[in-house]
């Protein structure tokens, strides 16, 4: 174990097929627009389902981007060295935040006009005492201001890290790293606040009567785990095609360990929240779970316990599965898939109250956003180097021993 090749012995990287990928990106984005257009047509017949599936897809891609930003911030806050060679891909994913902001617009429209998602936005409830008690927070202007602030912050922060790191490739200035590190501490604090309240606004707010103090942390941990899984998949894909030969088994092992840790951490947060509410059994909060442990939704709940925790946990428990690209890819892909399942379980009971259902709307919206994001990601990939060429910690990262 632990045989690292010196930097000089690493095989030369295969350059990215730029022309091919540009065409692919255009194709993907065109397809994405088609999908979304088709789904908007579906909104005429099933507006409630449409907006719920839109929120589901939006939150899925939002969690990937925000999770990527979390990893970039964490890299600087912890003064880490190991991840330099893989960090650029997290920066790339985080820098797609403007797209996520774009996807938020229909949700904002619904808050003002449609009222299909957030019950509290409906004028019918304007004089409801339960809502009035919290209307200082739950009101449309404040809701919009918060959303604008979150997105402004995330777009700015992601752009700042992506750009500084990219500029360092050409000017080789180590002070950029110092500066990013200095800024990251404060940004992480703001990031935490934004994530917490975004989770409260967009997911917990689906039911304004219900609340849980752990909610922000729970959503953040799930997002970070899912985004890590995507990050691993991107790295494995680039490595498989020999574009990124600097990444060796040690990096895979480290990322596998992190995925393992975040699988356990998700289970811990999810269990803490579930067990305390189940145990106290207070009607005003326990109905959240009763609703989701009802009929066929209950099978999904049990499936989540097994699939979001036990499967990746057992899969990543031995050492070799974290070092083997195939098993690691399997685990990462599975976690990503489970993030979608979990969000489905959280959001869709709002429209499919009796039993699970998956309509073509859900698939079309998800595929549309996915294609748009994938195309945007490919363009990002081509617009900069695959890893920070002149990061002062690059050598430490390439020679890291797990």
């Amino acid at each position, binding site marked *: *174990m*632990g*045989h690292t090749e010196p930097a000089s012995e690493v095989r030369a990287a295969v350059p990215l097929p730029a022309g091919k990928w540009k065409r692919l990106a255009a194709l993907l984005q065109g397809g994405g627009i088609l999908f979304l257009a088709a789904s908007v047509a579906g909104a005429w017949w099933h507006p409630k389902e449409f907006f719920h599936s839109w929120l589901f897809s939006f939150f899925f891609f939002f969690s990937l981007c925000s999770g990527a930003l979390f990893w970039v911030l964490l890299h600087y806050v*912890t003064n880490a*060295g*190991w991840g330099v060679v893989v960090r650029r891909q997290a920066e790339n994913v985080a820098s797609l935040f403007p797209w996520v902001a774009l996807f938020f617009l229909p949700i904002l429209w619904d808050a003002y006009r449609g009222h299909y998602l957030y019950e509290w936005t409906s004028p019918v409830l304007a004089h409801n005492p*339960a809502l009035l*008690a*919290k209307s200082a*927070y739950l009101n449309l202007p404040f809701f919009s201001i918060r959303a604008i602030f979150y997105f402004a912050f995330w777009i700015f922060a992601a752009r700042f890290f992506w750009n500084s790191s990219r500029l360092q490739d050409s000017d*080789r*200035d*180590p*002070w950029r*790293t*110092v500066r990013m590190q200095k800024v990251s*501490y404060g940004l992480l*604090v703001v990031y*935490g606040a934004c994530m*917490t309240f975004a989770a*409260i606004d967009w997911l917990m707010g689906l039911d304004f009567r219900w*609340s*849980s*103090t*752990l*909610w*922000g*942390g729970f959503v953040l941990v799930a997002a970070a785990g899912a985004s890590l899984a995507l990050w691993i998949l991107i790295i494995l894909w680039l490595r498989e095609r020999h574009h990124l030969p600097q990444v060796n088994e040690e990096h895979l092992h480290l990322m596998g*360990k992190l995925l393992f*840790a975040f699988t*356990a951490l998700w289970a*811990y*947060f999810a*269990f*803490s*929240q*579930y*067990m*305390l*509410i*189940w*145990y*106290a*059994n*207070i009607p*005003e909060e326990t109905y959240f779970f009763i609703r989701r442990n009802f009929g066929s939704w209950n099978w999904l709940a049990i499936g989540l316990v097994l699939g979001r925790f036990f499967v990746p946990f057992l899969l990543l*428990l031995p*050492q070799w599965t974290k070092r083997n690209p195939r098993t690691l890819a399997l685990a990462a892909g599975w976690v990503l898939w489970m993030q979608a399942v979990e969000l489905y379980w959280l959001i869709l009971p709002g429209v499919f109250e009796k039993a699970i259902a998956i309509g073509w709307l859900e698939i079309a919206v998800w595929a549309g956003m996915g294609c748009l994001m994938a195309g945007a990601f490919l363009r990002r990939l081509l617009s900069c180097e695959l890893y920070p060429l002149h990061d*002062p*910690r690059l050598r*430490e990262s390439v020679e890291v*021993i797990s």
Partner: protein
Amino acid sequence: MPIAEETVEKAESGRALLARPELVLNQREASWVNDTVCAVVEKPAPLWWWVATGAFGLLAAAVPLVVVYFISTGLGVWGLQSPVFWGVAILNFVFWIEIGHAGTLISAILLFTRQRWRNSVNRAAEAMTIFAVLCAAVFPLFHIGRQWMFWYMVPVPESYAVWQNFRAPLLWDEFAVGTYFTVSCLFWYFGLLPDIASLRDRATKLWKKRLYHVLCWGWTGSLRAWRHYEAGYLCIAGVVSVLVISVASVVSTDFATTVLPGWHTTIFPPDFITGAIFSGFAMIVTLLVPLRAAYPSLKDMITGKHLDNMAKVLLATGSLVGYSYLIELFMAWYGANPYERYTFWNRITGPDRFTYFAMFGFNVILPQIFWFRSCRSHPWILWTSSVLINVGMWFERYSIIVVSLERDFLPASWRHYLPTWVDWGLFFGSVGLFFFLFLLFLRVLPAISIAEIKTLLAKPKRQRTGEAEAEECGPWPGKEIYGLGAEFSSEEELRRASEETRKKGYVWWDAYAPYPIHGMERAMRLPKSRVSFFVLMGGLLGLFIGVAMVTATSIPRPQLLQSLTTGQLQGLFYATVVQGKPYFSLPAFVPVLLELTILFAAFSGFLAVVFFARLPRPHHPVWNWGELSRRATDDGLFLVIEARDPAFSPAESRKFLESLGGRRLTFIPR
């Protein structure tokens, strides 16, 4: 070209800022580490030690005195009255148990996150953990009122045929704290093995040598043993890090599973963990800053960088604790439950509001000074803050426990709670006990992990120069020899020599070093240690036992046992409905199952290491070589080829080892 020069200079200064600092200062050598750390134990105790130990010992004496008083009088002498039935005693339990978390956390979680600076603080922190848990255990033990019936909480078959309610958070507590104490002791002791061997090899008195020899199970420093040791240490650290998280969470469920406003909140488990890390780190700083001042030579190992890192951890965890306070406030308002809202309003404006402000000020606002490097690098600012932080954490528990209970749902029963002198006596007694035990520990065992520090030393190292070569001992004609030993002067040489020895076809040989050397398993071509398999098996066994236990004590009697009487079944399968929960309440059983899994996994890991490393070893022939027996746990790197090896021949093997750069070649008598 002044501009170019300036850029180069700027780049250099940036690089210098980002350089990794040395974790052991002044280019210290391995033998210096041994001398310095062991000197604390071996040299006669300084005057301050006697004074401090005497003072804290006197304070600790309050514990037995107060205990005898209130057991003989009755618990009425405590300040407990309706509605505050959980007062300062439970508060102190939470206070101490949370302090006890940082030790294991530093050892285990910082090990996984590759924070190598932990190596110089983990030992003291682990010791602190054990003493803090001991102090914590005092309170529930006496709070139960009928202390002589303590064993009712232990699941043993007994004549009353009454079994425990495994759905109850207080029982989870017992399992969690019990497991935590046992496994922390095990982990601490496991980490101590090589260091006790160091003490043994330095001891001058025969009885001490023998005592240490027994305590370290006859540790040789063989690299074949080191491999299993490292694997075992990692595995136990793994289960311990789950344990540390589960214990703080279980303690939080004592409150969070209730339906009381201010107690029932889902963020409590992670909040208690961050609180535990926070208060534990504060306590480590409280202990280490004076320790550094008392033994200035330790400053090369517990450097300014260490204090800086710990201050950063305090800042991070303090801010996270602040996050919990604020989100609790927000959700209390957002939840719009009038009782919940009132509880928090009462904390802030009620008669005990100063506890809330002390909590917020000391735990959230005070650590914000650590944004500034000058505050982080000044030991006494750091020390003062760390003491105040623990005061703040004490008030946090006061605010949660007492202030929530003082004003319950029924205003007619509201009453102000005041702890009596008995409460205070027990608390200050426990403070005395804690510091008293820590001071004793300083004089008995190495307060810094010697073997782990050595892995941090600057390399290349230890070119011993100007030293007379010891006379070489030829094979004695009349004596049977065990093997041929050689010393090597650097890790690299030893690694290369091992590789050559293996390639030459030797089978019966071993290398000895005072610390695990990276890459040796490849040089010696050792297979992967199988310790982890036994850890997994042990864990599964614990889980299985746990499932059997909670099932048999909770579900109704199955059909095939219908013919037996309750007495014959020892009261098993005698189902009772608790809180309307199902007989088999899986979510409520998880804490107990988890603790048992961890308990068994940790102990089987320890036993597997003992087995694979061929411990205990009363005697080993290599110790007949004086040089090795003195320095294999100090700074010597040795390679020994045994005479029973088929390829062994005194002349050729000797030439072979000489050609590899071995020195002090010696034939070791059997």
